[in-house]
Every structure is written in structure tokens, then in C-alpha cells.
């Protein structure tokens, strides 16, 4: 598989999930295991252009595919617009749900470049946060959409 543009070879037992492969056998620990059954979104990665819960995908299903994890969103140490907007709008507290949320927001914005608040609330319902950062996340997504369209930051 190609992870964040880098080829990685790995052989694991068939039962190993993509999430466990990333975390335990490689060193991509951004994605987290929380519910381990496709409820919380903390393990979100982009697989072959599609957003997936990596806890619910087997590593063998990802063979030969392109995977983007949270570690692959920033380029040369520069945060992607959605990441910068998360920081600016304080959309993280403990930060444990944050990597999954950031990836989900990125995939959401790729599909909905000009979302309304209602779109955000509907489109990001698959990620749970215990610290209650949703107020910041809502603002961050709208602000990032604005930046990505070339508008003013936080406008």
C-alpha cells in the first residue's frame, strides 16, 4: 500500500485491521481506536479516495491502495487549511478524537467546498468527541472552506 505517498510493505495475519496495521505494525498512530466498531470516527482515514473507518477495514482489503492518514495532510510542516482552522477555532481539547475529525472534515470539504452549517452538522455526524469540541469544529470547517475558496481567513 501507499501511505501518504510512501510505499509500505507489510505482511500481517488476515484478521488484522487496517487500523491495527497502521498503528501496531507501522508507526502511524494519528488514527485512534476508540469504539472499534464503526461508531465514533476516531480511526478515520482516506482509502482510495474514500473516507473509511479503518477499524472496520481489514488490512488485506487495503492492499495496493492509496491511504491518506492525518499525518499526510500537512505539507512540509505547513498545516493544511482545515488543520490551521482547528487550531485557530480551538476545535480540540484532549485531542484524542481530533485526528479522525480532521481527516473526516478534509474529506467532507473535498466533497462540499461551500457547506452550510446544516451540511456540516449532517456530514460530520459520524465523529464523536467526549470533550465537546463540536462548537469549535463547526466554526473550523466553515472557516477552512472559506480559506480554501480563497476567501478571507475566518471571514
Amino acid at each position: 500500500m501507499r501511505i501518504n505517498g510512501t510505499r509500505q510493505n507489510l505482511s500481517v495475519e488476515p484478521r488484522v485491521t487496517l487500523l491495527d496495521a497502521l498503528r501496531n505494525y507501522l508507526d502511524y498512530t494519528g488514527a485512534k481506536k476508540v469504539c472499534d466498531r464503526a461508531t465514533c470516527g476516531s480511526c478515520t482515514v482516506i482509502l482510495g479516495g474514500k473516507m473509511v473507518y479503518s477499524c472496520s477495514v481489514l488490512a488485506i482489503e487495503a492492499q495496493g491502495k492509496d491511504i491518506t492518514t492525518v499525518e499526510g495532510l500537512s505539507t512540509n510542516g505547513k498545516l493544511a487549511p482545515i488543520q490551521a482552522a482547528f487550531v485557530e477555532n480551538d476545535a480540540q481539547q484532549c485531542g484524542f478524537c481530533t485526528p479522525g475529525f480532521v481527516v473526516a472534515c478534509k474529506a467532507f470539504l473535498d466533497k462540499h467546498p461551500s457547506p452550510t452549517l446544516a451540511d456540516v452538522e449532517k456530514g460530520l455526524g459520524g465523529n464523536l468527541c467526549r470533550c465537546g469540541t463540536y462548537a469549535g469544529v463547526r466554526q473550523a470547517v466553515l472557516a477552512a472552506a472559506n480559506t480554501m475558496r480563497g476567501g478571507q481567513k475566518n471571514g
Partner: protein
Amino acid sequence: MAEYNWPEASKRSLIGKRISRLDGPEKVSGKAKYTYDLKRPGMLYGKMVRCPHAHAKVSSIDTSAAEKMPGVKAVKIIQDPGSEIQWAGDGVVVVAATEEHLAEDAARAVKVTYEVLPHLVREEDLSKAGDRAKPAAEKVAGDPTKAFSEAEVVSEGTYSIAVITHCCLESHGQITEWEGDKLNVFPSTQAVTGIGGEFVKALGIPATNVRVRMNHVGGGFGSKFNADRWGIEGARLAKLAGQPVKIMLERDAELMVAGGRPSSFAKIKMGAKKDGTITAWESNSWGTGGPGGAGMPPLPYVWQIPNQRMNHTGVATNIGPARAWRAPNHPQACFLTMSAIEDLAAALKMDPLEICLKNISLLGPRASLYQEELLKGAEIIEWKRKWHLRGDTTAGHIKRGLGLSMHTWGGAPHNSECRVTINPDGSVSAELASQDLGTGTRTVIAIVAAETLGLPIEAIKVNIGDSAYPPSGGSGGSTTVGGVSSSTRRAAADALDEIFKVVAPALNADPANLEAAGSKIQVKGDASKSMTWQQACSRLGVKPIRANGKQPDPAKGSLASSGVAGIQMAEVTVDTETGIVKIEKLVSVQDMGLIIDAKTAESQIYGALIMGVCYALYEEKIMDQATGRMLNPNMEFYKLAGIGDIGTLVVHLMTGQEQDARGVIGLGEPPVVSPGAAISNAVANAIGVRVPSLPITPDRVLTAMEKKGGLT
């Protein structure tokens, strides 16, 4: 002598501003490492064999098959045959293997038999609790009997608030690693300083042999103060295996055994005059927090009602032990009390806001603050325009309602020591064995040090999360911000004093007449006589300045205090066909003394409101009396609010001289106290009847309406 007091408002360049948390970039890029993300050389994975029964005696244990499984390095019995187990999910045996799934396989191969004992896991019916019910002595104040006989109106109600769990997204756990006879612990914890002592005691090793380190923690909320059985046994297992062992609880275990907020049930009677003056309170309450029962929450909450009678019964159950849950006992007491007051208002056909204002003198020393906050909240939510008598009479099946609540909390500073170092190259570090739970502790420390030294926030390197640093209290009780800001301020002020002494001759000034601002050291009121921070530090030669600051340190004044007031208002709509409650708007007006970082302070309140929506509408640890087990130990059925469930949130921070004068006061807990009560009151106002239990699930809404005979 150094200037320890907080700078006055006009002189603050960082304190009270909106500053982004320092570890934000690390967190959004997936670089922040939690215990759960760490790997140590040769690390094994540990898994526990858990008891499936709520109450049982271990009869026999056979680990022979597990020991022979591939990858298994150690197997350890932690509760021998004969041990009595008090809740389902408690650990009996622990195994360590080279890979996580191999450890799981081995745990499954351990054979344990039990003698099953009678259990109790539900407490709503006190008559079924038998000798597990432990009544406390009656508490009486004033003359409740007389007050009730003289009351012009008496209202009565029964209310309940369920056991919920902490559900930290990073589960509990740690890595334990031996280096000879020295133990390294990497826990997911709220108490870097405190937790080491438990290993010292349990393992009989000297305190100097334990080092605790952590960088980030994925939620604690009061549940992560202790080493826990998995911590101590993890250390023993690592010794046995001769390799480090990582044990992180699985999600089901996390929900079953590693969290729990006690339930509260109460029959409440209130007496008042026709004009709304509250005169009497009587409550018969009970609740459970697991085997230890549960003490009485602080009833009646906030209101100092002159005549009171309270009886409380703790019920010991086999549901797993309670842990401190963000503002222990306050959300329960608040929900019970504020619901009863709203029901009294409904009986009087009065506006609850009016009742609160009328009885404001019963709110004690912060009465006028509450009054100001109530009026502010009412203005924000447009209470006067939107409030109606109980039961929305407009046509259609969507009913709208308003509710309010009020709360308090202590938040006094904990003990803390901070070491500030100024290096000859101008770099500055602040070190303390504290932890940042995501509340923004790192950022607060940096703000205080930078403000004190007249530097930008980036100039401060904050080192926390290591027991090798000076000790600082656990992060609980909203005590952290007061503790670390006080110790950091004093350390930085003393360090600055030292550097003043070094540079004073060059500036031809008295050290006492120098100040630090804008990355310069200058003569007070004369910026022309100055030198840059770099120049000043280079005069240190090869000797850095180190200063230790402490909290408390009475000789150096007081920078923090305790006691806050807050109010919240909720606007909801209820679909009377489905019973679904929708949050339209939540308003929080909160007082918290001097604010260090307005941005992260607001985040604490947003987070508390959202957590409040969770326990008001969704969360419940549902226990099954037949099997003694939790029915929903997963995140599909143990529900949290999602991003679309929270409505519009408005946060208003009380600021000004009154707040500044009280110094720093913790904020993490108070705003999570009121949402349950405010939302429940809003639902009652919408549909015309009290839904007596939290969480307010659709079935409970429909049942309450049916009992009342449908819509009015």
C-alpha cells in the same frame, strides 16, 4: 521584592486574551502522542481475564493452556480462588504476549470457574434493596414541620438521574517498564505527581525508584487519578515477563469498570407562599455509586432554604465503583433541586425566573452576582419574549420551551511547585509535574510566565508530565489553573528579580526600579534606558537563573481563590409524536475570577454544555438485573451527542474588577453542572409535564405525556 500580584487590567499583554492552545498544531497533525500511542523497546501487550458475573467467588483458575500459547510471555493470577468479586468485568488473571491479538487469544484460553452469588445492579426501587440500603442520619434545619403546615402552596415531585460513565475516548491504561529495580510508568492519567506513590506502596519500592511520564491524555473527567488494578498488576506482570507491558482497557471494559457517576433519586416536597417566597424543603433521596453506595448530593442545591428536612439512603450495588465525575455530586443535586423549583413555579403559575429573582437572598454571598447573571442570560435568550406558562399551547406537534438553572463550584488552587529557568542564551523554561487534560494547562503556564517576564508566549518552553519535575497536584476539582498559575507566577517573578539584579548596574538603576516588557528590560517609566532580553540574559555568563515558585506561599500573597456562580438557560423543541427532544439554544453565563486565556476558557464551557447535552438526553449505564451485566458497554448504545445534536451555544464570560479581585478560580467543572436541569426544565415548559428522569429519552417523553393524558 518581586512583584507577585497579577498585573492590573490595563497592563496585561497576554492574560485574559484569546490565545490558541500551544499543543493545537501537534494535536491536529496526529503528532501528539498519548499513552495509547507509545511503544517501548520489547513491549508486550497485556490483557485481562474478566469476571462475567456481577457478584461471585472465584472457585478455580487454570492457566496452563494459556501459558503454552504462541507469543505468551507471562500469565499472572491477580485474584486467587476464594476471592470475592463485586462487579462484572473485574480482572482475575492478566496475561502478556508479544502481540495484542495473541494476548487476547491467551486470555480467552484461561479457564476460571466461579461460585455465583446474589447480586443487585438496579436501585430505582428502594424496597428491593434489602440490607444493601444504608440510610444516613436525618438532617434538619429550621422547623420544616411548621413551615409546611403554614405553606400556602406545596408542590411535590419524584426525580431521578441515572448512573453514567466517563467514557474517555482514550481508555484507561499504562505501560509499565522496569530498568533493574527502577520502574517507569507511562500512564493515561490526571495525576502525574500523585500516581507514583501508589506503585511505591503496592510494590514496596522506594519512591525514588518510580518515574511517571505522560505527554497527552485522551480525557479523564475525574476517572484517571489512580494507578488502578491494571496499573499495579501491569507492573508486576512486566517484572515477571522481564519486558515492558502495555495494558489499555478495551472499550467494553472502559465502560463497565473504569468510570461511573452515582445515580440520584429523590422525592422532593417544597413549600412556598402564594407570592413565590420559598419557605420549606423536604427530600428523601437515594442512589448508588457501586459497592460503596452513594452519599447525599448537596441538597437543596445552591438555595439556602430556611426550613429543611433531608433523608438519604446509599444503595450498595454490583455495578462497578464510582469515580469522581466532573463536579462530583453537583449535577445530581442541581437537577433535583432546580427541577423541584421549576415544578413549584408551575404549581404557582409563576415564571421560574421571577421566583429565582424573588428569592435571590437565599443564594448567599454571591446572590447579587447570580442576579446579574440571570438578567444577562434572560436578555441573551430573550426570556421575556419567549417564556410561556407550562405547556406550549401553539398548534402542531412541535412544542417549544425554556428552562433555567444555576450552579456553583469551589475551584481552589491545588498545591503546586514550578521551576522557571532563564538561560544565558535567553531561552526560558517552566517545569512542573502537572498535566494538561486538554483544558489548556500548558498554555496557561506559558501565558503566565511570558506575561511575567515581558516575553512573547513562544519564548516559553513548558515542560510538564514528568514526575522528575517539581510536584504539582492532580488535575481534579478545577484546582489546576489556580495552582499552576500561582506557582508559575511566583517562580517567574523571582527569576525576573534575579535578572534585574544582574543588569541593574549596566542600566545604572536600582533593581527595584526595573520592569520587563516587550522583550526588554527597562527602567520603569523610561523606555530609553533599556536593554533587550537577549542582551540581559547574555550577562548571565554561563550561569542560568533558576527560581522555584510555590502554591501556597502565604508570604507572597494570594493569586487564586475559590467559589464561582453560574447560570444556564435552555431552549428546546420537543416532537410530541416521536418524543424526540431537540436542543435549540443553550446559554451559559459564567463567573470564574480572573481569566488567563479567554479562548480555552470558552472552550471549557462549550465542552461542558455539550457534555451536559449528553447526560441530559442520551447517556445511561443500563444494567440488567437478570444477568447483572451492563447492556450497553459500547458506543452504539452508550450514546454521546454528535455535532448535529447541540443547537446554538452562547457563552458569556463575566469579567471585570469583581472577577479580577478574586484572582484565578478553576472553571473546568462548574458549567457542566446545570445543563441537565436547564434542559429538563425546558422540556417540561414545552410539553406541559415533567419528564422525571435523566436522560430524557423519547420513550420517557411519551410516557410522561401519556400519564398526563396527552397534550393540554
